[in-house]
């Protein structure tokens, strides 16, 4: 930088200049520390805003903690809410790792839920099919529907270079309308926006089913979907870390140029990763209908697919960390249902995401205050 041009970089016009200097080495503890700092900062800022709009931040936060972790019953509820967030979070993390902005997990979730419901309601399998066949069939149908929904932006991006962010977002609205058509129309029960309840054979086993063995399990609604979600997260983490395919995903994400020179077919990978990402998000929809609501309805997601974006980002696109982040956001979502005004959880999420990206600056740069000469 030439001395004559230096003053223009200054952020302020005071004699002290704020300068960002690129770090050559990132201390290994700094990553965790900045993330923790960002979370604390976001919660503090949110508390301030809650106080300004006339709420009680201390009571709000205490409520979140007790409503989400205050006993075995609510911990179980937190895990139930975290389950779709883990699956949609892993879906986003996988796509984001390749720098594919799949903002469509919400729509893929709805398609997954619809696919699983079709198995029971069309019905694709005769009534009376035992659970051991029915549940895997529902999972397969949900995965395929979610994957097909993810395939659309993947194909359009690979073939025509169409911006995947807009396409996935638009498809969210289409998927929600598609779902509403079925629950209001052909599958409606008595004109309400929900279908009939599914037979018990389609329900994912829950801890409360074991209440006859031990009373302690009674009322615990955490279901097999949670185990499946964790297994999927571990599997995707393994593939990303230990396989050639996972290496290619990461290479494309870090340097598409290098990947091209290495002979990787980026178009093919784009389509494939989008389909898998969509399929995993579809599984989240399956898990909700088969594990929680046991029917298809209009309001089946409070925006899991959108929260998943923050979950994936907080986890730095690492599927294992997604599990932890999803439980954190599961708690926020669960407790948030009773918080007034109702926008507060969404607001906290937004502030958190911003302070996370802001904190990354501290990772990449050292902020120096330099006294200006002359």
């Amino acid at each position: 930088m030439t001395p004559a041009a230096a003053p223009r970089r200054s952020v302020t016009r005071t004699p002290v200049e704020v300068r960002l200097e690129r770090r050559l080495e990132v201390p290994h503890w700094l990553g965790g520390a900045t993330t923790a700092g960002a979370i604390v900062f976001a919660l503090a800022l949110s508390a301030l805003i809650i106080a300004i709009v006339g709420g009680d931040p201390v009571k709000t936060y205490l409520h979140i903690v007790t409503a989400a972790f205050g006993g075995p019953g609510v911990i179980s509820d937190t895990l139930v809410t975290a389950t779709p967030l883990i699956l949609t979070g892993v879906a986003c993390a996988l796509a984001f790792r390749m720098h594919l902005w799949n903002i469509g997990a919400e729509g893929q979730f709805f398609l997954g839920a619809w696919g699983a419901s079709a198995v029971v309601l069309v019905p694709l399998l005769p009534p009376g099919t035992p659970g051991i066949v029915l549940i895997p069939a529902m999972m397969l149908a949900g995965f395929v529907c979610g994957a097909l929904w993810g395939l659309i932006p993947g194909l359009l991006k690979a073939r025509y270079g169409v911006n995947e962010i807009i396409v996935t977002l638009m498809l969210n609205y289409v998927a929600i309308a598609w779902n509403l058509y079925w629950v209001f129309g052909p599958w409606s029960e008595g004109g309400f926006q929900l279908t009939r309840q599914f037979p018990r054979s389609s329900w994912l086993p829950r801890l409360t089913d074991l209440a006859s063995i031990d009373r302690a399990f009674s009322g615990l609604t955490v279901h097999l979907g949670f185990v499946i979600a964790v297994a999927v997260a571990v599997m995707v983490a393994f593939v990303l870390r230990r396989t050639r395919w996972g290496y290619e995903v990461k290479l494309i994400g870090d340097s598409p140029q290098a990947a091209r020179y290495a002979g990787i077919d980026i178009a093919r990978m784009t389509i494939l990763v989008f389909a898998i990402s969509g399929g995993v998000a579809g599984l989240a929809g399956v898990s909700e209908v088969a594990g929680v609501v046991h029917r298809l309805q209009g309001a089946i997601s409070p925006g899991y697919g959108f929260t998943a974006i923050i979950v994936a980002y907080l986890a730095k696109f690492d599927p294992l960390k997604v599990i932890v982040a999803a439980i954190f956001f599961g708690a926020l979502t669960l407790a948030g249902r009773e918080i007034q005004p109702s926008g507060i959880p969404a607001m906290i999420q937004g502030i958190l995401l911003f302070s996370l990206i802001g904190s990354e600056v501290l990772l990449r740069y050292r902020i120096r205050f330099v006294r200006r000469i002359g």
Partner: protein
Amino acid sequence: MDLTTILAAGIATGTILLFAALGEIFAERSGVLNLGVEGMMLMGAVVGFGVTVSTGQPWLGLALAMAAGGLLSLLHAVMVITFQADQVVSGLSLTFLGTGLARVMGEGLSKAGAISLLPKLTVPVVADVPILGAFVRDQSILVYVGYALVPLAWYWIHRTRQGLELRAIGEYPTAADALGVDVYRLRYRYVVVGGLLAGLAGATITLAIQPGWFGDLTVNGRGWIAVGLVIFAQWDPIRAAVGAYLFGAISRLLFDLQGPSDFFGVANPIFKDHSLTFFLEMVPYILVIVVLVVGSREAARKRLGAPAALGRPFIRGERGA
């Protein structure tokens, strides 16, 4: 259901998209992608409505709505211009933040009832011309602001020195910098212009075209449609206006399709089975996707494209395109 009504309504609702798309054109022309349009529009919508509910002054509401959009965009500018954060992630965060804040601020506003709106104008004589008259008959004053803004924006971008600098920092910031253009300051300026216009777009909904506060549904994805429209418009204000008005008209046409029991003797299936309207609801969103595909092919053929430096941070002193 006649052509003039559809056109008039299409222009009115299209104005909402137009403001947001024009703002995004300015930001993207300067090289900064802002995906926070939906959030900024929601903030503009809630601030404009809320201020008008409590003060009875829609013009004050409009001004503060624009300020709210501008403030939010400033946050994005700091993140991506000064801190060089990823523009996609920062823009998405802005939408989250704007949506959440708007919902917090909008608490209770849905029961506010009728408010005083911005005035409507009719241009005499011209209003009596068939079809064309729809443009100037009983339209909100903001619709006329839209008419004025389109040629102004076009002239600014293509015919002024400032416009040349704007295009330069979006295409080749290093060269612009070498010629003494302050890339950082100009990018800040145009990102904030984008925010002001997104705030205006939000206020256009609640203070003029579709008054009322319905939470997220007030904007209902129109911020995202505007972002898609910019790509279709190939970053040109005039094409954006055509797209926005056309889009508004199509949305209105879809709404009108639900009414009649038959078209020229052919039974209307939607009239019999009302759940089919959900397929009509899909059409605008599918249309955006189709338009993107067509637009990208056309852009490839004509070798037109996004500003070359769109989405890339400019780091002074480092070599780059």
